[in-house]
């Protein structure tokens, strides 16, 4: 079953999967613009790019979740088209996701063979055969648990093993690993590397998506770089340095214009000392001044949003002190945070921001109802007045404030959510990925508005994974990695290269350090 492929010089091997001129557009956004990607048998290809480069879209096209709008996918030089995830699976393409998609209530064997379990003569699932086959697969990959174990009893690393066993059970030729190490411990990552070697030795083509340069240089044979949905370059890992890869990935500054900000820092508004959490972050200490925009940059899973939720009172820190205007404040709930002048505009506005079903004006006034009511009764006229004022400030485009928020575009929904928080007249506003998934016009409006807020004396914390935005908008940037503050950057230190390096843990151009 093992087909050992050619050694060091692999340029003579032809790709299993070859994507060429692939284009994918969504209303208003071109996610992929004529990109190419080749995957070779027995080799690991790292797909590298910033957030929004089009990596996830590529995975979704390869696994048949999205259909292309142009370009060709070839398998063994024969053009194919995947109308559904099932087609992709039949072609031997399988994906192991960031959050593994498995069933907690089923056994390991059932998870491995769900959908293609061996059958008895009567068409029933042949449990014995299934467990035997599963046991053999688990043995092959060195899994330390039995096929009868219930999945819910396994940790994340072992769940990954199950996902990999599942990939092997369908005789996959192409295995896609989308940030497989994001939630793993150091030891588990080592085990994963061993497994990747096993898969390579079996001749599988592996697409490896990661933000961590140390692991890319550790296990990948090839790289492909995307930037803003376009192909930038590819080649052999052996032929490139970390620095060169960072430069490829970040490129020159994107042609995006950010508002000019004449910033004179005011007095200290917020001081956070030693905020810690058992698993997500530790020892977060920083200050925020009046009229300042403080950027928080880091990779997905660096603990930025988790820390912000703690600062906002949703989760409790184990340690740490928060001072607002010099006074120690204990924030136990979001209501406490709002009362102390801290508001949080969450990342996923669909899930955490707008109340679909309530009209626009009621969304805007939701946290301010105390001010628009008297003796327990709401005054609709007051509510409308408040909503109109902030809708106008944000240049909200809506036929009527009485309209259901669900009928607004993404950008306008975002404006409603921001208006909602501004109406509480906060001192500190935390914006978590404020422009994620909105069109360029709305992005510019949000940026302009952030600058205005800061100019009016509001202090802004902006959590963002988009490097141009972080650099273009922030006065200072705090880079987080693995739940800790990696560095604080401002002025000339604030370059795309330093941000990527600090976030990925590349100290100098010598060697990647282990966290």
């Amino acid at each position, binding site marked *: 079953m093992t087909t050992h492929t050619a050694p060091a010089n692999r340029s003579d091997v032809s790709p299993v999967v070859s994507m060429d001129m692939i284009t994918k557009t969504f209303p208003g956004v071109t996610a992929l613009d004529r990109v190419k990607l080749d995957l070779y048998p027995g080799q690991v290809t790292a797909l590298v790019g910033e957030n929004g480069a089009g990596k996830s879209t590529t995975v979704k096209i390869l696994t048949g979740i999205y259909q292309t709008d142009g370009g060709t996918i070839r398998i063994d030089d024969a053009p194919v088209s995947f109308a559904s995830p099932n087609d992709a699976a039949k072609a031997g393409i399988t994906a192991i996701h960031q959050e593994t998609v498995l069933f907690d209530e089923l056994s390991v064997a059932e998870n491995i063979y769900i959908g293609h379990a061996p059958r008895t003569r009567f068409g029933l699932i042949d449990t014995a055969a299934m467990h035997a086959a599963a046991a053999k697969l688990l043995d092959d990959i060195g899994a330390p648990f039995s096929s009868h174990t219930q999945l819910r009893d396994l940790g994340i690393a072992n769940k990954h093993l199950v996902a990999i066993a599942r990939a092997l059970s369908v005789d996959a030729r192409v295995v896609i690993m989308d940030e497989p190490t994001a939630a793993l411990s150091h030891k588990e990552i080592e085990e994963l590397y061993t497994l990747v070697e096993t898969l390579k030795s079996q001749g599988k083509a592996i697409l490896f998506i990661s933000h961590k340069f140390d692991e890319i240089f550790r296990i990948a044979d090839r790289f492909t770089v995307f930037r803003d949905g376009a192909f930038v370059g590819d080649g052999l890992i052996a032929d490139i340095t970390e620095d060169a890869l960072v430069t490829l990935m970040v490129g020159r500054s994107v042609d995006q214009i950010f508002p000019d900000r004449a910033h004179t820092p005011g007095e200290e508004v917020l001081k956070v000392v030693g905020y810690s959490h058992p698993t997500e972050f530790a020892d977060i200490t920083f200050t925020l001044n009046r009229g300042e925009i403080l950027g928080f940059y880091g990779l997905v899973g660096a603990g930025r949003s988790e820390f912000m939720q703690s600062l*906002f009172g949703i989760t409790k820190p184990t340690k740490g002190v928060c001072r607002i205007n010099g006074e120690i404040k204990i924030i136990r709930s979001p209501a406490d*945070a709002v009362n102390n002048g801290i508001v949080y505009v969450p990342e996923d506005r669909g*899930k955490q921001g707008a109340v679909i*079903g309530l009209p626009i004006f009621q969304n805007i006034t*939701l946290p301010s109802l105390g001010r628009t*009511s008297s003796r*327990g009764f709401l005054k609709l006229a007051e509510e409308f007045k408040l909503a109109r004022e902030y809708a106008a400030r944000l240049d909200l485009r809506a036929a009527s404030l009485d309209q259901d928020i*669900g*009928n607004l575009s993404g950008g306008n929904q975002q404006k409603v959510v921001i208006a909602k928080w501004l109406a509480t007249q906060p001192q500190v506003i935390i914006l978590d990925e404020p422009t994620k998934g909105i069109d360029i016009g709305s992005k510019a409006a949000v940026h302009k508005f952030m600058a205005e807020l800061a100019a009016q004396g509001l202090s802004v914390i902006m959590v963002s994974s988009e490097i141009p935005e972080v650099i273009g908008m922030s006065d200072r940037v705090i880079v987080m990695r693995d739940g800790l503050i990696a560095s604080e950057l401002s002025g000339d230190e604030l370059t795309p290269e330093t941000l990527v390096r600090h976030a990925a843990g590349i100290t100098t151009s010598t060697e990647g350090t282990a966290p």
Partner: protein
Amino acid sequence: MMRHIPVRETILASAILLLIVLIASRFAGFVAPANLANVFNDTAPLIILALGQMVVILTRCIDLSVAANLALTGMAVAMINVAFPGLPIPFILAIAVTLGAMMGAINGVLVWKLNIPPIVVTLGTMTIFRGIIFLISDGKWVNSHEMSPAFTGFPRAAFLGLPVLSWIAIITVVAFGVMMSRTQFGRSIFAVGGNPHAAVYTGINVGRTQFGAFVVSGALAGLTGYLWVARYAVAYVDIAGGFELEVVAACVIGGISIAGGIGSVGGAVLGAIFLGVVKNALPVVNISPFWQLAISGSAILIAVAFNARSGRTKGRIILKSAEVTQ
């Protein structure tokens, strides 16, 4: 919201009118004002309970214990009346509302603090409440001759041409109209059901709001408990058996989304009236009561299908924008 819900309510109101016209064409007496008033009075308990249930369903919960709560409170106040026949009616009312609210609070605490799914909690308390009725009454009935005339007479007393029972339903409807549109609690209920995550970020305590909804539903069940027992002048273990499903049905027909966050006082009231008209009209036009069940059942399915359809067309827009962000 204020734009599309009246559409649903108008359709439901038209369906009710059509039904009444159809019945009137075969039996003109049905539309006599006195008879319509009777139908309304007969539907009053359903209207009151449907409003309580609406609040619970809007917060993404369900209260299956309302009928058992009603029966237990009814039995309790009946026994109190037997023991202290001189106790004035306002006291009886206060006791009924308090008892009911306490039972609702039990549901609410279990949902809020222990995070047990509401359907499980209320299925459990439903059985427990019925069991308690048996324990306190020894399985015996409290009959009309044991109750004081004031006790049984209150819901039937006429005031401005309508019985007090009808007036209580009308007052409840008005109070709920104000509560849902003009108080922070009402707004929180919509926010919690419409988007619990967003509600948390807004500083609304989702669990406490759900607790409040259960207390409201329980209080109304308690109130109805007294009215029911007094009106029918009898209290026993099984009164209003299965009535909780009729209450949920009224809400669903009235366009209250089982998924929470969408619904209106008008919808719940019309849903209850629709069921009331069906129930009262069919015997009049000589249709077997079995048809009544079939008609109620069909109405539920049609209402749910209608809601799902309108929900879907609305959802599409949201999904598209969500897809881009993926």
